[in-house]
């Protein structure tokens, strides 16, 4: 079975390493990019099921990466979750406006929680709104 592919764009090597290891342990396939431009290349090359995008990145800021991904028809539909350092920021609002599907505040979650969030995201994906199977639903 094809593993779910994730592209992780994160410039801090420690955070990237930890997230990478834990996501791989959770049975995801993870490609790593450590700056904005490498992130764009990685997404175009891998066409993942999800992009985890840090915001403050060298070479190209996360917002620019997000904007470019959403502009190009091939990458437009790839879901993006932005990673921010602080919660309750204008960054989150801006990210969502630019087309991010969701956001994760790194400082507010343990790694395990973040992995859970990613898993939940894919669980919700396979049950898009309005089509949640109900008990007794025969369709």
């Amino acid at each position, binding site marked *: 079975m094809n593993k779910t592919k994730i592209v992780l764009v994160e410039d*801090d090597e420690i*955070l990237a390493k930890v997230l990478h290891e834990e996501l791989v342990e959770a049975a995801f396939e993870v490609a790593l990019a450590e700056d904005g431009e490498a992130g764009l290349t990685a997404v175009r090359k891998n066409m993942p099921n999800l992009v985890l995008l840090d915001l403050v990145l060298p070479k190209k800021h996360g917002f620019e990466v997000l904007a470019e991904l959403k502009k190009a028809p091939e990458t437009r539909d790839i879901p993006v979750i932005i990673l921010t*350092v*602080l*919660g*309750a*920021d*204008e960054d989150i609002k801006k990210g969502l406006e630019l087309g991010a599907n969701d956001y994760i505040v790194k400082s507010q979650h343990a790694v*395990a929680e973040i992995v859970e969030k990613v898993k939940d995201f894919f669980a919700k994906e396979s049950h898009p709104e309005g089509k949640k199977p109900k008990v007794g639903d025969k369709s």
Partner: protein
Amino acid sequence: MENREKTTEQLKEDLRKTREELAIQKWGIEKTLEGMKVLVKELIQKGEEAEKAKAQDEALLASIGDGVIAIDMDGRIILMNKAAQTMLGWHPAELLDKSFFETIPIEDEKGKPVPLEQQPISRALVGTTTTGHSYYYIRKDKTKFPAAMVATPVIIDKKIVGAIEVFRDITKEKEIDKVKTEFVSIASHQLRTPLIGIQWLAELLKKEKLTDKGQEYLNDIRISIQRLNKLVELLLNVSRLEEGKIEISPQSIDVVNFIKKIVDSLAILNSKKRLSLTFTADEPKIMALTDVGALQNIAQTILPNATEYTPEGGKIEVKIKKHGRMFLLTVSDTGIGIPKKDQGRMFQEFARASNAGRIKAAGMGLGLWIAKQATELLGGKIWFESQENRGTTFFVELPLKSKSIDGTKKLV
């Protein structure tokens, strides 16, 4: 023969006498003339001295780097020095005798004109020496600059006859302040990333096989991380509050539950210090529309403070009461109290009570300042009553419905 004709001798005598009187009078006149000359000389000299003094005063006034403006009781400008002219862009001829209030507008930081009665120079006219440092002067060309101003009344024979204002362009100082605040904001942001790294690694370490000692050290690392986190959050909040664009977005929460959770989080520390803690609310649930971040910053200062500054075996009482459109949170302790001489400045930035060092050697003195800012942003009031060595009670009164405020940053 009659004595009508005087003898030659007698005539000579009369002539001699007249000549004598004339000489005396001439002498008198000469003396008076001399006296007058001296007087005129003195007057001329006094006149020159006065001119010199005036010139000196003018030179002094002109060389003062700060702007000086004097007005009379009717608000008319009677004096303006060179610095004032340069800063405001007016020529003195254009302003002398004109109304200060009509020609030199003052705005606040938000760009709103400052009402007449609040302007420092108006207040000086009624006798109050006033300082203002968040006002902007509007120049002749309609541009503006921030100014620090001090206005004092001019009193002659116990009556106020006018006012003088001395002011300075503080554009540079404001710039520096802004850069400083931005730096703190960026720095605390940057500090977060490695902090998160340590936290996550500690979390993963917990899953690894460690010796008992190892686990213990790991727990200590986690406690240290929490402390570091708190400090960084503190710095971040301070810089955000100083930048002044805090967003308040009220949500409906149960205040009783909210406070109870914080109280519970202090349970271990409280039992370690054998502190008895009672928590009472006059209703089991009190719903309020309030900003969670702001309320957190308030409660997370005054509750832990009570625990921190109360010696072993002491008592802490936390009460929540609803009254009218507000709710009141009181936190009383039997702690070391705040000395009277420190009480007036406790809500200032970096203020620490003089006896605080006994219990907590180093503290930044930011907690209460942040709590006060947060309280005011929510539309409430915070105050305390305290007696040294007896205890302190903090009161926080907040609206049940806080108004939302537009902003670009929230309190963490």
